[in-house]
């Protein structure tokens, strides 16, 4: 693929490192959850890395993203502090949200990360709002709304298409279609098509292969550029797959027996990325190995830090409800 050759080496390495960081983060969180060390609802992004990273490589801190319950990948892709994220997932006092949010509410507004969100579809209006701020304050910022195939049926998302359109807001809607909303297949639950709906609301749209970082990167780039130039919102339908269950603890009996093995073997965005780039002789396998090793070590340290970090205390319980009351 030609685009692979056009990206600078550092960009390729940065993209891979982010994807690899997400994967390692999620795999380790999976282990810790399975071992009973993480409480609550945890939804992993492993397998979907090319989407979050392919999009966020085009963004800086002035740009905003709205994320979902499956937010770890978006957070890492948008530059959230990984140590702070892990501590948050463990409910620690110096987690990114002081331990008050947990996996489903990781946010860092200073990075333009508007928050993971426990309410499916809620990010649509928020992304429109951030885009309105960019537009009215002329910051040049663009907003991205990540949401799932399930979310694509929510009123909040559907209304947002129209609001972004008629207010001509700089928004990119990224429908991350991993085939399921919990256990319900998107092939059943989504009437019509994501791109057809976009057309219905007057939004340009494209469907892309979400296992292919370069496909995501290219299309997102075009759409983000258009938005930044005042050309309004568009929609990208990304087809991808998750490596784990809907949430940790999901037995996944609704999936085909070979589905995950096939995903991991033939549709792993990291493998595909590496293979492409190695074939184009842009980065050597050894360099990739070095990244892999560094990421593994870093996340191991992150995990150690998170587990050692102190819990919040009663003094923290009632702070942060208001600025002043």
């Amino acid at each position, binding site marked *: 693929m030609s685009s692979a050759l056009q990206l600078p080496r550092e960009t390729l390495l940065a993209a891979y490192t982010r994807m690899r960081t997400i994967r390692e983060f999620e795999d380790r969180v999976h282990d810790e959850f399975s071992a009973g060390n993480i409480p609550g609802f945890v939804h992993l992004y492993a397998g979907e890395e090319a989407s979050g990273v392919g999009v966020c490589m085009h963004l800086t801190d002035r740009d*905003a993203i*709205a994320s979902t319950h499956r937010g770890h990948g978006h957070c890492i892709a948008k530059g959230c502090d990984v140590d702070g994220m892990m501590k948050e997932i463990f409910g620690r006092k110096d*987690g*990114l*949200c*002081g*331990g*008050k*949010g947990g996996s489903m*509410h990781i*946010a*860092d*507004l*200073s990075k333009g990360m*508007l*928050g993971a*969100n*426990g*309410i499916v579809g*809620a990010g*649509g*209006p*928020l*992304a*429109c*709002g*951030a885009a*309105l*701020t*960019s537009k*009215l*304050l002329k910051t040049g910022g663009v907003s991205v709304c990540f949401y799932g195939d399930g979310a694509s049926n929510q*009123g*909040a998302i559907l*209304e*947002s298409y*129209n*609001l972004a359109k*008629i*207010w001509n807001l700089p928004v990119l809607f990224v429908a991350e279609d991993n085939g399921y909303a919990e256990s319900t297949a998107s092939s059943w639950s989504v009437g019509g098509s994501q791109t057809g709906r976009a057309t219905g609301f007057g939004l340009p749209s494209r469907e892309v292969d979400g296992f292919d970082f370069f496909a995501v990167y290219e299309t997102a780039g075009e759409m983000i550029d258009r938005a930044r130039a005042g050309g309004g919102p568009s929609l990208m339908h990304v087809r991808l797959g998750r490596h784990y269950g809907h949430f940790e603890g999901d037995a996944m009996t609704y999936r085909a027996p070979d589905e995950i093995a096939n995903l991991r073997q033939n549709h792993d965005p990291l493998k595909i990325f590496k293979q492409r780039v190695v074939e184009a002789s842009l980065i050597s396998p050894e360099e990739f190995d070095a990244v892999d090793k560094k990421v593994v070590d870093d996340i191991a340290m992150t995990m150690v830090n998170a587990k050692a970090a102190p819990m919040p205390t009663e003094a923290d319980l009632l*702070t*942060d*409800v*208001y*600025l*002043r*009351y």
Partner: protein
Amino acid sequence: MSKKSYRQAVNEALRQEMERDPRVILMGEDVAGGTGAPGQQDAWGGPLGVTKGLYTQFGPDRILDTHLAEISFIGAAAGAAATGLRPVAELMFVDFMGVCFDQILNQAAKFRYMFGGKAVTPLVIRTMYGGGFRAASQHSQCLYSLFTHIPGLKVVVPSNAYEAKGLLIQSIRDDDPVIFFEHKVLYDEEMEVPDEPYTIPFGEANVTREGEDCTIVALGRMVGFANQAADNLAKQGITCTVVDPRTTSPLDLDTIIETTEETGRLVIVDESHPRCSMASDIASLVTERSFSKLKAAPRMVTAPHAPVPFSPALEDLYVPSPAKIEAAVRELVGQPTRVAAE
């Protein structure tokens, strides 16, 4: 100082704050009016004309007509507030909260706490409430109790034009999400209101009457009714302190407690349904703190546990009236009214 209606007071507060701070914007259905239409722009100013003229002054970048879809525009206001604007969003009637409540309940109200104190969400939602307009079950509710229940929100219920202006300016300058309740029946009521901007702080009740026999705490439109009742009672030798809390969240419990302990009696007038209401909230909080000073149980005067009826004949019986307040006070001080002459 000049005579202004409640409608004008709200309009002026918006105008002055928009003049002061370029980050303040207004959005809502037909807040300008006429967008895309062949005739006049700024054609409506909302269904009751409250925001009329602002579009002409501030233009389309700051007075934004929305589509008819509250989830997205109320949520966009929350998102804009969290990223640097100071939006005033109009939820036309509070009855429509059901359509977009998530963006208030789970988004705006919780950002700050969920995100560990890192979010600032200076959002104001202006909304019309209350009965008496013959607007029936889906356009006459109060519902401020529901918002008061939710941590992270501030709730403002101004009782007249003066209060409306000062409290709205305060709401716009406040850095937390505020739900601002305008009573549709008060819009035409006039009084002297300062021309310059001023603020009324949250959580500081206003004592509108002072008396010795009973304290009446009333909200919004009910404050005027309570004053009427108090004035009437005074002629009969029963004097009342009337307290307007102004904001239900935060609530100035101290003033309520203090004045109640002075009189030993408390009547709470709340236009909403009785269950889990502001009336029950205040009654329980006062009882908890002032039990030994109370001469009798706090009395709650509210609308009944029924939707708001359309027929004027029924709605007039439904909404609390000065006569009902008077009757409640008389009963409490031990001078029962004969047949309630409604």
